[in-house]
């Protein structure tokens, strides 16, 4: 479905020139969405990588499919359905693993599948067919409406603000949870807050790469940045830049080759990850 929209839009002016590429409003919106989403993605992705909670983030993202179903069923913007579902997943997985001592992968699996199941049932109950369903699963940054840009901007401010306020505490629990607890921090509350910020980042990323591929943009830019950073703040700044770069490159390549934008962004990121990983490994071998 994204291919259809892409092809239709490009048929009007098929060119590979960058300036032309920016003449379209949908392209400008896409770039703004890419810039804004990269900010949340770089900050929260850095925590996801240093805390190794990528699989929890994946669980939250997939549970959010239930929210997309809810949006269709109620006839509202599916992103608004994603917000409660991803927050419930974040708090649910957090509480099950930390308070009820359920194994983490079990909690993730349960939420993941339940969220998807709720989404499938709700979409099935919605009369007619579900337009643009694919764009929520796999992203379509070229169709971001201005109203979603506003939502993304507000979430960005909220995520960035909270991460800034709690940066000392988040760094402490990420590096040494036990010491933080001994120092009097309420580590479970901080963990839940961090998971909620991941949930809100998922909401932002749904538009860009879709819920299935969120996890790649949450982890890859930060993982590459980690190889070259000495402080967490440096890592965040670098992963924001990398995320922007992957988005721009992916968007441009998808335009040139007329392929799905979200998937292209992911492939660009994966390629850079692979190359920098190999380079680091080789540099490491030379040093020893």
């Amino acid at each position, binding site marked *: 479905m994204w291919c259809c929209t892409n092809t239709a839009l490009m048929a009007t002016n098929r060119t590979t020139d960058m300036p032309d590429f920016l003449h379209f409003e949908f392209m400008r919106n896409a770039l703004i969405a890419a810039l804004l989403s990269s900010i949340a993605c770089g900050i929260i992705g850095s925590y996801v990588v*240093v805390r*190794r909670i990528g699989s929890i983030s994946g669980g939250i993202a997939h549970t959010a499919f239930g929210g997309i179903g809810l949006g269709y069923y109620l006839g509202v913007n599916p992103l608004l359905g994603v917000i409660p579902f991803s927050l419930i997943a974040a708090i649910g997985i957090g509480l099950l693993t930390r308070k009820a001592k359920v194994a983490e992968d079990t909690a993730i699996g349960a939420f993941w599948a339940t969220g998807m199941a709720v989404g499938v049932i709700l979409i099935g109950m919605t009369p007619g067919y579900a337009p643009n369903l694919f764009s929520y699963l796999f992203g379509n940054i070229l169709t971001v409406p201005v109203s979603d840009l506003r939502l993304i901007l507000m979430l960005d401010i909220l995520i960035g603000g909270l991460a800034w*306020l*709690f940066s*000392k*505490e988040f*760094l*402490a629990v*990420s*590096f*040494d949870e*036990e*010491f*933080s*607890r*001994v*120092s*009097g*921090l309420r580590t479970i509350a901080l963990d839940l807050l961090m998971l909620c910020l991941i949930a809100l980042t998922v909401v932002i990323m749904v538009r860009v790469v879709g819920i299935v591929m969120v996890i790649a943009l949450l982890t890859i830019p930060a993982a590459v940045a*980690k*190889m070259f*950073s*000495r*402080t*967490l703040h*440096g*890592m965040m700044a670098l992963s924001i830049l990398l995320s922007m770069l992957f988005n721009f490159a992916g968007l441009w390549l998808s335009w040139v080759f007329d392929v799905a934008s979200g998937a292209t962004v992911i492939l660009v990121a994966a390629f850079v990850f692979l190359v920098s990983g190999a380079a680091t490994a080789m540099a490491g071998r030379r040093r020893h």
Partner: protein
Amino acid sequence: MSEPVIVCDRLGVTLGGMKVLDSLSITVYRGDYLAVLGPNGGGKTTLLRAILGLEKPSSGTLTVFGGPPGHAPGRVGYVPQRLFFDRDFPISVEEVVLMGRLSRCRLMRRYSRIDREKAGEAIETVGLARLRHKRIGTLSGGELQRALIARALAGDPELLLLDEPTASVDPDMKTTIYDLLDHLKEHHTIVLVTHDTGTVGRSVSRVACLSCTLDMHGPASSLGTSALENIYGHPVDVVLHEHGPYGNKPDDRHA
């Protein structure tokens, strides 16, 4: 007798259905430098974790600074046993040491200039000034251990709790760490846990021997007071408590 800092009275701790500590009584006074010795799995770490409030007593009572464990985080400095962390974690030595100020710094506030000064002093004390901007993962075992001691010191604690501070540290560095503790005991009450009976500094004021495991064969009293006094050359407290298939009553010979 000076003020008691830690009071354990018939303390028992059960972890996953296993009695790890049973009927343990000991009092640590202000200014003490206590070494808790015992075999691996003897419950030493559990005792420290109970004092920190990380494990709940299943029986008996435990007070720290006159209140429940964990009620006064700013007064307790904790040096964990060899931190398991990602060597590539992007955090500098200074940032790790600043964590020691968490208990003194309010939620959502940046670290203040005072916090940074205290962290700087602690880094000087342990002799890591040269390495303060290095990433923590690049430190050697002994340097890491000193960084963790600096982190505990940065919070200006009265009580220092150290778990196996010389595990995974080479012999020269062990001496350095014990010299450092000798220096610190002037102003701190220290409780040190180790299975390494050979290297505890001569300057510890008391030694407690903790053996509460099922695989402890023979009478635990073979690690008797006189033997330990021979090793350490000064008076020794022996804390003995047995349980399980050996069926012995807790021994009351400890101080």
